[in-house]
């Protein structure tokens, strides 16, 4: 008998058995594991490490920008720091973070599966990521790279005398780790859903991860091609992008952004995945407009491929292609707006908990809204001409990437921490750090909108004196933000040893991951679940909970 009722799945506490953590303690049981949960942990450790490496570079940049003169770092060092900050954060943190760490861990459990479809490929993806990251670290310790994370030609192919080849090779290899993860998620979602788990019973996390995986599969190969062309030109002198040997530098920009704009959605869709889960769990409600939210993820995946040239409005594309890309950029804002409205509406007549993940959700809605609407400014051609390549852009994408993705990452870490580790984090400290992150973030990045519009270009080591006040505010904010990010490192590690034991379902949340023990057993479920309920079926769940309490 594998069939279980809703009630059984959610409330039975199976006898304490071996879980995925205590099943084996050897080093090789980790390094050669095929368990998606352990691979998720490997990713969690790797991406968090890279986050602090990237954060270090950011903090040094903020210190340099405290004064208008370039006095703390040399120009070359500063240029290397912003380049490494971008490369580390984008390729080694933002893109793999949520899919690699949380997606690997949670997605198969949400589907009621024992593992991803291709466990060995999953392990390979972590190794590819690690090899790519080793190239990154090699570049950092052997002198750095100064092209900007965008590697614009012909600077990167003919003029920079830093470690461009090793860096692009690292990014190229890491790209394959993304592709393998995307492949695994797509196949797993199609083939390994539990009995009864139809597409429209899937948690929105899965929809969003699915959309992410589609973008990864279609866009990342283009990045691989582009980087190979760049390496060929740099090492062999074949004229592809350098006009003096017959190439076209704008072609590079088209190819680069054909990947890198969809990559923005590779970074934000997983964040939206986490937010949908947390909104439902901490309001005890089905996400408002489930189908609209689900389809909006697919709409984003589709439209994200039609907007790349909005990065080239002042690079010399024709008036009419500029208009087409501006128009498409306006359209891609609609599905994001739909999500924001629906999440907000979910809170209406809800039972809103003020626990840490929900604080991050509220922070996310606030910050992502600012990031989204400032995207409209940039999509509007007349304004883009002025603010392109200024701090306005820097601020805009940090509101999306940090205000959006990092906030959601932290929300997800706190939300699933009891499931992953079996322990609760200290709530008071966590709330404090959520507050510090929110305040520090706004203080860091809001002034950058203003300083950008006033005229400060990005990637400037030294700047005009009238920009100083806003830069000082920004650096002050970065200090608060740094404290906000370091705190969770401390209390989460503390909680591993001293945290209160979490039961199967500490939040009273609906979802297959809360129906199994914390930490889950190696095979995720003691019995294969059979799904007979809709996603986020809180009324039935809460009714059942009351009944168990009253019996």
């Amino acid at each position, binding site marked *: 008998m594998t069939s279980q009722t809703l009630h059984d799945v959610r409330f039975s506490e199976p006898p304490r058995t071996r879980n995925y953590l205590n099943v084996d303690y050897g080093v090789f049981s980790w390094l050669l594991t095929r368990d998606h949960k352990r691979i998720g942990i490997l990713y969690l450790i790797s991406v968090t490490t890279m986050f602090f490496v990237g954060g270090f570079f950011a903090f040094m940049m903020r210190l340099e920008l405290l004064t208008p003169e370039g006095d703390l770092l040399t120009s070359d060092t500063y240029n290397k720091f912003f380049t490494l900050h971008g490369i580390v954060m984008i390729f080694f943190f933002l893109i793999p973070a949520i899919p690699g760490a949380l997606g690997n861990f949670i997605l198969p459990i949400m589907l009621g599966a024992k593992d991803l479809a291709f466990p060995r490929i999953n392990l390979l993806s972590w190794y590819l990521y690690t090899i790519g990251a080793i190239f990154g670290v090699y570049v950092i310790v052997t002198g750095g790279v100064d092209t900007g994370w965008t590697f614009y030609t012909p600077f990167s192919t003919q003029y920079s005398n830093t470690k461009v080849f090793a860096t692009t090779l690292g990014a190229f290899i890491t790209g394959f780790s993304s592709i393998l993860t995307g492949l695994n998620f797509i196949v797993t979602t199609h083939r390994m859903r539990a009995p009864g788990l139809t597409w429209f019973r899937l948690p929105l996390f899965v929809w969003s991860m699915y959309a992410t995986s589609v973008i990864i599969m279609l866009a990342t190969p283009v990045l691989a091609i582009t980087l190979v062309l760049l390496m060929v030109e740099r090492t062999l002198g074949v004229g592809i992008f350098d006009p003096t040997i017959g190439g076209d530098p704008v072609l590079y920009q088209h190819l680069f952004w054909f990947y890198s704009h969809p990559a923005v959605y590779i970074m934000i869709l997983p964040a939206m995945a986490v937010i949908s889960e947390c909104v439902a769990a901490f309001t005890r409600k089905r996400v408002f407009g489930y189908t609209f939210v689900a389809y909006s993820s697919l709409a984003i995946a589709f439209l994200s491929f039609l907007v790349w040239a909005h990065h080239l409005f002042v690079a010399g594309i024709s008036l009419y292609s*500029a208009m087409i890309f501006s128009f498409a950029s306006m359209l891609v804002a609609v599905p994001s707006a739909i999500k924001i409205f629906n999440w907000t509406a979910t809170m209406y007549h809800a039972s809103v908990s003020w626990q840490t993940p929900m604080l991050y959700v509220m922070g996310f809605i606030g910050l992502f809204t600012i990031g989204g609407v400032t995207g409209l400014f940039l999509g509007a051609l007349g304004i883009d001409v002025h603010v392109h390549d200024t701090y306005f852009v820097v601020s805009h994408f940090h509101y999306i990437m940090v205000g959006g993705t990092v906030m959601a990452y932290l929300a997800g870490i706190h939300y699933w921490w009891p499931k992953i580790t079996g322990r609760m984090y200290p709530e008071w400290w966590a709330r404090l750090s959520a507050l510090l992150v929110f305040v520090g973030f706004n203080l860091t990045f809001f002034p950058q909108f203003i300083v950008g519009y006033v005229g400060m270009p990005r990637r400037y080591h*030294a700047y005009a004196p009238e920009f100083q006040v806003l830069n000082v505010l920004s650096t002050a904010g970065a200090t608060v933000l740094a404290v906000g990010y370091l705190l969770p490192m401390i209390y989460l590690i503390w909680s591993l040893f001293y945290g209160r034991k979490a039961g199967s379902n500490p939040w009273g949340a609906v979802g297959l991951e809360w129906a199994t023990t914390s930490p889950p057993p190696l095979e995720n479920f003691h019995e294969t679940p059979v799904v007979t309920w809709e996603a986020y079926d809180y009324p039935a769940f809460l009714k059942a909970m009351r009944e168990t309490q009253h019996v």
Partner: protein
Amino acid sequence: MKSDFPLFPEQASTVAGSVDTLYITLVVVTGAVSLLIWIAVFYFAIKYRRRPDNELAQEIEPPMALELAWTIIPGIIFIGIFVWGAWVFFRIQRPPDNALEVYATGRQWMWKFQHATGQREINTLHVPVNRPVKITMASEDVVHSLWFPSFRVKRDVLPSRYATMWFQATKTGQFHIFCAEYCGTEHSKMIGSVIVMDPREYQQWLAGGPEGSLASQGERVFQKFACNTCHTGDATARGPVLAGLYGKQVMLTSGNVVVADENYIRESILNPQAKIASGFQAIMPTFQGQVSEEDLLKLLAYLKSLTPPQPQSRPLAPESPASLIQSRGARATSPATASPVNQGNQP
């Protein structure tokens, strides 16, 4: 004069006002919508916070009308923003015909400006107030971007290709020039000033031109590279007649017709085999790597200054391709008379 906490750069061009108006409108509209969202989030979070009597959320079936409303209404607003933004963009992109021509070269890490009258400047650009100025520019190395924050205009400066931008300053004074596209070590030093002058002062400044007009300098480059051995100005010569070429359509041996704009002329000098004018042999050697960016701009100014003796003598006739670019008897007129330099100086 400059505030410690500025919100806007100075408005010193004809388009600055319309860019700022759009910007302020967007700040107000998106600010209001964002505020509504935040108020809703906080109101709901407090009003519906979890209490013992509130353990169960109330399930609400989302009304389709509401879903459609917040899909369609933002869509319409966004498209409105697009239309307005595109309208401003057209104003920014389309130079008026009577613009004063200035040439610029970007290189790591300086800006060089050349005026039609022959003045050359580094990291400083003098322009008259209330007169459209069109800048034709190219980079000697990597991609740069010329930005005048106070004019709200910016354009990437590409290697081996001409880009143009224009503005009309409305205020005299000194304003920033920044390189906006990251270009290497001293990117943040690739800055300068644009000095907007009263027309009379601008005349005086121009009068100090040391080396003759840009076109006459271009004629010297033309002779230095011995271009005139083939481009003699004679219709039967080995090279096409160049007088009046600029802006005309040219029939190619491939059968295509191209407009002889800046980029065509540039390509014809650096890579002459790429497009061969119909009726001529592909015998011109390449000048790639021999002519500097600045000399190219001088040549361009020179070619633009050559006026054909019989302007618009014939309608363009594709069946007689040679006529497209040759006008019999045209000769390179002396730069003293043909130079366009003075037409830019009328107040």
